[in-house]
């Protein structure tokens, strides 16, 4: 390579380094993806994100704006990616807007479902991730990660990543049900003195304009009794259901309980026109 080529290469490198960057483009880094075994036996991919300070990504229900990350993969017949498992979000309420966000280092579990419940893929997976990340302005980002075949038996996922706890299912001591058109929660408070319910995105079902809803915590129990607004015509042809997280306590590592309960439908939803 001639000295002129060296000079040109150096000039290009300098020009690139001086070009104003899209700050959002570098606000999220995928730290790694690893195989885990969920409590129900399904294998899952734990995606570890690292979000720059002051930036945030979004929970499954982002709140008033935003959009949650998505995962896609081209899998052989009989395999699919399951519904992701989301860690506890932070509830951000500013300027009349409520958002449910993930910040800093956080983990996202994406089940991989095969022909049998415990089946582990014997093929590598090209995981395609997309996300929206915001500070004052927003950016969309993506990454493609090649996940090799699991070596050995995957371990259970950690209870938390970056301090944000993964949810647990209701225990035998917890009561979560839909009675008529009301959501009724009566759960063990697990030593915490506060609680609130954050609804996920449930087409056709709403707990009203206020999300999250506070729960009353007394005598070791967190209770909530919330009427549901039902609009079967908005359910996109799916069964009506209410889902979300009961956040106990106020810290990111405090327990949270995830549940989904179907709502009895009195009239069938009309299918959407093609």
């Amino acid at each position, binding site marked *: 390579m001639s000295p002129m080529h060296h000079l040109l290469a150096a000039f290009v490198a300098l020009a690139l380094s001086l070009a104003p960057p899209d700050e*959002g483009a570098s606000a999220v880094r995928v730290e790694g993806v690893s195989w885990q075994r969920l409590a129900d036996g399904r294998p899952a991919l734990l995606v570890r994100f690292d979000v720059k300070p002051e930036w945030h990504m979004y929970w499954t*229900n*982002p709140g*008033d*704006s*935003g*959009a949650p990350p*998505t995962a*896609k993969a081209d899998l052989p017949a009989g395999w699919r990616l399951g519904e992701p498992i989301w860690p506890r979000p932070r509830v951000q*309420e500013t*300027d*009349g*807007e*409520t958002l449910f966000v993930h910040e800093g280092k956080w983990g996202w579990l994406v089940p991989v479902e095969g022909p049998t419940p415990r089946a582990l893929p014997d093929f590598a997976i090209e995981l395609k991730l*997309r996300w*929206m990340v*915001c500070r004052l*302005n*927003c*950016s*969309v980002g993506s990454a493609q990660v090649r996940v090799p075949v699991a070596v050995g038996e995957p371990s259970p996922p950690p209870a938390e990543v970056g301090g944000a706890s993964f949810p647990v299912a209701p225990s035998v001591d917890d009561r979560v049900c839909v009675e008529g058109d009301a959501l009724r929660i009566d759960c063990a408070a697990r030593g915490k003195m506060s609680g609130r319910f954050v609804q996920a*995105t449930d*087409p*056709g079902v*709403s*707990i*009203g*304009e*206020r999300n999250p*809803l*506070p*729960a*009353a*915590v007394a005598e070791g129990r967190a*209770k*909530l*009794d*919330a*009427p*549901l*607004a039902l*609009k079967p*015509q*908005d*359910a*996109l042809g799916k069964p009506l259901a209410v889902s979300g997280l009961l956040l106990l306590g106020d810290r990111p590592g405090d327990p949270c309980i995830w549940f989904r309960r179907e709502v009895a439908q009195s009239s069938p*939803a*009309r299918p*959407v*026109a*093609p």
Partner: protein
Amino acid sequence: MKQNRLISMFAVGVLALGAVSLAAQADGTSKKKGDAAQKAKDSKGHTAIEVGAKVPDFTATDASGKQVKFSEYAGKTVVLEWINPDCPVCRKVSESGLVKKMIADAKAIDPGVVFLMVNSTASMASEPKKSTDYLSSHGVQPNATLIDGDGKVGRMFGAKTTPHLFVVDSKGTLVYSGAIDDSADRGETAGKTNYVINALTQLKAGQSVSPGSTKAYGCSVKYAKGS
């Protein structure tokens, strides 16, 4: 003496009312059945039009500075889309041709359908050309581009994201509010169902619109502070 007594009684009354209110909140029970069916309010108390309600007339300024009255479009189906050229999600749905195709498909169903693009970004109120240039660069030709710098129109409709779509039928009733389509990757690829086209198809067939609302995705509308 009498005045002091009255003041004391008033103070006791206020305290009692406050205690009752606190007690009601503390039990965490949303007792009013109508709570879930109240008018849509954001956390600042703005009351937005709900799906199924009539859209009141309003006046807005278009990008050329002309006053536009919503009632000018009486008797026509109107589609409103909230935009922000600085929002990457908004840009994605425009760059992919999704909005241009939506307008073309909509006019094939209803040649008289009106498209209004609305920019409620406070900081862009003084740069209307930014909105029109953004739209024309993507082949999007609405009937009007409304510059809503004070956020009045946005707040009235309850626009929360860019993009956020609303469909008003020819009788002036809001029949749809939400996302542009059911794209699972937020506009990277077109979804299977465009909810605006779905609404127009159903209106033409004399059916009620279903779904009437979906969750809009995108950047927050950058309203003026305190609006």
